[in-house]
C-alpha cells in the first residue's frame, strides 16, 4: 500500500512546530488565545459554543488542499429515496446500490465514472469511515459500504487500497465489517479496547494501541482532560477506552499518514436533542481521547476536528445512511425509536448535510410526539463551520434535492 506524503501537513509534522504549539498553549494564559483565530468578527456573527481554548486556529493556518471542504458542492444535499430499500428490516443491497448511483449522479451531475474522477486518482488510498455503533439496528449498513467499494474498484482503485475504518476493532466486527464480508478490502481500526480484564498495556505501561496514533497531529483542548471524567470506573478504565488521557486527542496514523482520501458514511440517528451523523462520525472517529470532550465540547469538536487538514483536505464525499433511522434514544440502537426512512443523503459539504438531516430529524421527533428542545446550541456548530469556510450552516443557503 502506497504512502503518499501529505503536502499541506508538513508544517504540523515538524517537531519544532509541535513544540511551538505546546508553547503557545502554555502562553495562552498570558493573553494569547489559540482558540480565537483571525476571524474574530465572523466569530461574533456565529459564536463559538464554548470558550475553551483549542488549536483550531493552527488548523486554519495550513493552506487548504485541492479537495478541501466544503468540496465542489457547498450547500448542496441530495436525498435519494426508495421504499423498496428495506423490507421487514432487511436492507436490499441491489436497491441500495441503485440509490447510491442515482444520488451520486444527482450530486455531481456526472456519471459514476466521471464522479470517480472528480474525487479520486487510481493511486489513492481511500478510507471509508463507517459508524458501527448501535449495530445491528442503526449502524452504517454493509450494503451501502459494498456499493461504495464497488464504485471505487470500478474506478481503478485496488481493493487493498480501500480501507473500511472505525475507532474500535470489536465494533467493526460486530457491525459486520469483516474480511469474510469484504474480501480483499483492508479493514482497520484505530484501536482496540480490552474487555473482561484482559491486558491492554505493553511492558512499558503504554496502551497497546498507542502507536496507532500520531503524536505530531492532534486536537488540543486546554484544561479538558480525561482524568476523572464521569462515567468511568477509574482513570485506568478511561485510558483503556481512550488510549491517552491528557489535553491532546491524537489523530490516528491511518488518517494522517495512510489515507489520501476519505468517504464518510454516517448513520441517521440522534444524540439527545442533537444529531449524531456526518460531522460526529468523523469528529469523534478520527482521534483518540474523546471521552473528555463530550460534555464540554460536544458539537464544537464536530466542527474543529473536521477543520484539521488531515480531515478537511481528504474528506471528499459524505453519505448519511438513512435507510434506517432512529429519532430518539441514540446514539446507541434503541428499537423503540427505530423507523424505516428508506433514504440516502449525499453531500461533499458535511455541515450542509448535517443541517438537512437535523431538520428532518426534528420533524420526525415532532411527528412522533418526542419533545424537541430546539435551542440554538444544538445547531450553532454548523454556523461556526460556515465562519471557518468549511461548509454551509445557514439553512437559507442549503438546497435539498430529492430524487
Amino acid at each position: 500500500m502506497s504512502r503518499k506524503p501529505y503536502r499541506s501537513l508538513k508544517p504540523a509534522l515538524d517537531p519544532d512546530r509541535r513544540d511551538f504549539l505546546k508553547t503557545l498553549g502554555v502562553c495562552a494564559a498570558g493573553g494569547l488565545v489559540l482558540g480565537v483565530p483571525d476571524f474574530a468578527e465572523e466569530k461574533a456573527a456565529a459564536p463559538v459554543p464554548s470558550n475553551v481554548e483549542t488549536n483550531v486556529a493552527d488548523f486554519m493556518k495550513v493552506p487548504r488542499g485541492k479537495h478541501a471542504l466544503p468540496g465542489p458542492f457547498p450547500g448542496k444535499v441530495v436525498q435519494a429515496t426508495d421504499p423498496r430499500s428495506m423490507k421487514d428490516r432487511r436492507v436490499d443491497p441491489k436497491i441500495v446500490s441503485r440509490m447510491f448511483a442515482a444520488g451520486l449522479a444527482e450530486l455531481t451531475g456526472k456519471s459514476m465514472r466521471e464522479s470517480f474522477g472528480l474525487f479520486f486518482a487510481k493511486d489513492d488510498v481511500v478510507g471509508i469511515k463507517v459508524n458501527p455503533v448501535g449495530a445491528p439496528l442503526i449502524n452504517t449498513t454493509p450494503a451501502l459500504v459494498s456499493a461504495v467499494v464497488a464504485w471505487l474498484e470500478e474506478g481503478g482503485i485496488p481493493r487493498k487500497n480501500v480501507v473500511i475504518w472505525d475507532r474500535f476493532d470489536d465494533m467493526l466486527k460486530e457491525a459486520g465489517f469483516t474480511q469474510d464480508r469484504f474480501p480483499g478490502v483492508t479493514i482497520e481500526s484505530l484501536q482496540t479496547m480490552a474487555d473482561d480484564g484482559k491486558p491492554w498495556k505493553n511492558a512499558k505501561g503504554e496502551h497497546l494501541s498507542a502507536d496507532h496514533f500520531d503524536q505530531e497531529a492532534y486536537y488540543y483542548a486546554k484544561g479538558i482532560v480525561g482524568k476523572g471524567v464521569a462515567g468511568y470506573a477509574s482513570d485506568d478504565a478511561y485510558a483503556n477506552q481512550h488510549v491517552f488521557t491528557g489535553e491532546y486527542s491524537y489523530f490516528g496514523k491511518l488518517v494522517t499518514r495512510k489515507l489520501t482520501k476519505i468517504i464518510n458514511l454516517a448513520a441517521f440517528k440522534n444524540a439527545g436533542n442533537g444529531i449524531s451523523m456526518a460531522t460526529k462520525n468523523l469528529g469523534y472517529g478520527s482521534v483518540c481521547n474523546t471521552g473528555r470532550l463530550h460534555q464540554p465540547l460536544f458539537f464544537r469538536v464536530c466542527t474543529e476536528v473536521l477543520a484539521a487538514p488531515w480531515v478537511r483536505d481528504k474528506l471528499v464525499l459524505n453519505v448519511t445512511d438513512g435507510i434506517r433511522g432512529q429519532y430518539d434514544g441514540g446514539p446507541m440502537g434503541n428499537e423503540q425509536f427505530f423507523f424505516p426512512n428508506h433514504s440516502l443523503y449525499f453531500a461533499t459539504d458535511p455541515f450542509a448535510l448535517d443541517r438537512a438531516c437535523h431538520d428532518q430529524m426534528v420533524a420526525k421527533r415532532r411527528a412522533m410526539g418526542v419533545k424537541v428542545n430546539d435551542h440554538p446550541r444544538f445547531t450553532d456548530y454548523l454556523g461556526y463551520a460556515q465562519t471557518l469556510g468549511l461548509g454551509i450552516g445557514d439553512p437559507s443557503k442549503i438546497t435539498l434535492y430529492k430524487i
Partner: protein
Amino acid sequence: MAGQGMQMRAKDVAAGIMMILAAVAARAAGDLSLLPAGGFVQGWSKDGAARVYEGEALYDHIDGGGEAFLEMGFEACTVQRYRRGPESLTVEIYRMADPAAALGTYWANCGRETPDPSFAERHTVGRNQILLQKGADYVVATGPEPAPGLSKVLVAAARAVADKIPAGEPPPCLALLPKEGLEPGSARILRGPIGMQAMVTLGEGDVLLLGRTVTAVAGEYKDKDGATRTLIVAEYPTASSAGGALHHLIEHLDTACSILSAGDGHLVFKDYKGRFGVAATEGRKLTIQTGLAKEPAP
C-alpha cells in the same frame, strides 16, 4: 369455612413474606436470581455466565449512554445472554436507586408505549425489544433483529423477571405534576442536566442544582389556545436549598435568555424564541414554566 379462609390468608401472607425475603436476598447477590431461568421458554438456555456492572463500571457495558443512568441514580446492571440454536437474546436488569429512577429511565427510553395486552406490568414491546419498569428495576430484553415469534419470547423473559420483583408504590414525586392538561407520554423525571436537556435549556450544566439527588418532574401542557408550555417542578430537601437553586438559576440563566425581572423567590425571562418563562419558589418546591406566549406577572 371462615377458619379455612383465615388459614389460607395466613399461608398467602407467609408466602408473600418468603417471596419478599427471597427477592431481597437475591438483590444482595447482584440480581442474578432475578434473571429468567434457562428454559423460561422451551429451548432457550443461558449462554455463558452473567455479567454484573456496578456503579460507574456501567460505562464498560454501555458506551455513550451510561451518563443518563448514573445521573438518574444507578446501582448495578446484570446482563445475561440466552440462546436457542442460532437465535439469541440478551436480558439486562438495571437496578436503579429507587422507583423514581427506574421510572424516569423507562420514560426516557420507551417512546410511545405499545404494550402486550396479556402482560400487566408497565412495559412496551416491539419486534425485537421489550422495556419494563417495576419497582426500582428497569429491564430490557433485546433480540439482535426481528424474527417470527420473538416478541412472545421477549414478553416471557420480561414476565419471568417481573414475577420476582416485589410490587411497589408509585414514586411520590409523581404527585408534583398536575394531571389535568398533561400531554400523554410527555412526563419525565429529572435529576440533572442530561435529563434537563431533553426538555429545555435553562443554562450550562446542572443549572437547577439537582445534583443527582433532588428529583424534579416535568411535563408538557397544552393550553386552551393550543400553545404548549413546559412545566418543571423540583422538590428540594429544604426551602433554603430551593431558594438557593433559584438564585443559581438567576445567576446562570442561559445566555440566549434575557431576564425581565428577578427578585425574592421569582424570575421572569424571555427565551431565544421570544417566549416567556417564569420560575418561583414555594417552600421546598421550585416551579418553572417555559414556552409561555404571554409575559407572566412577576
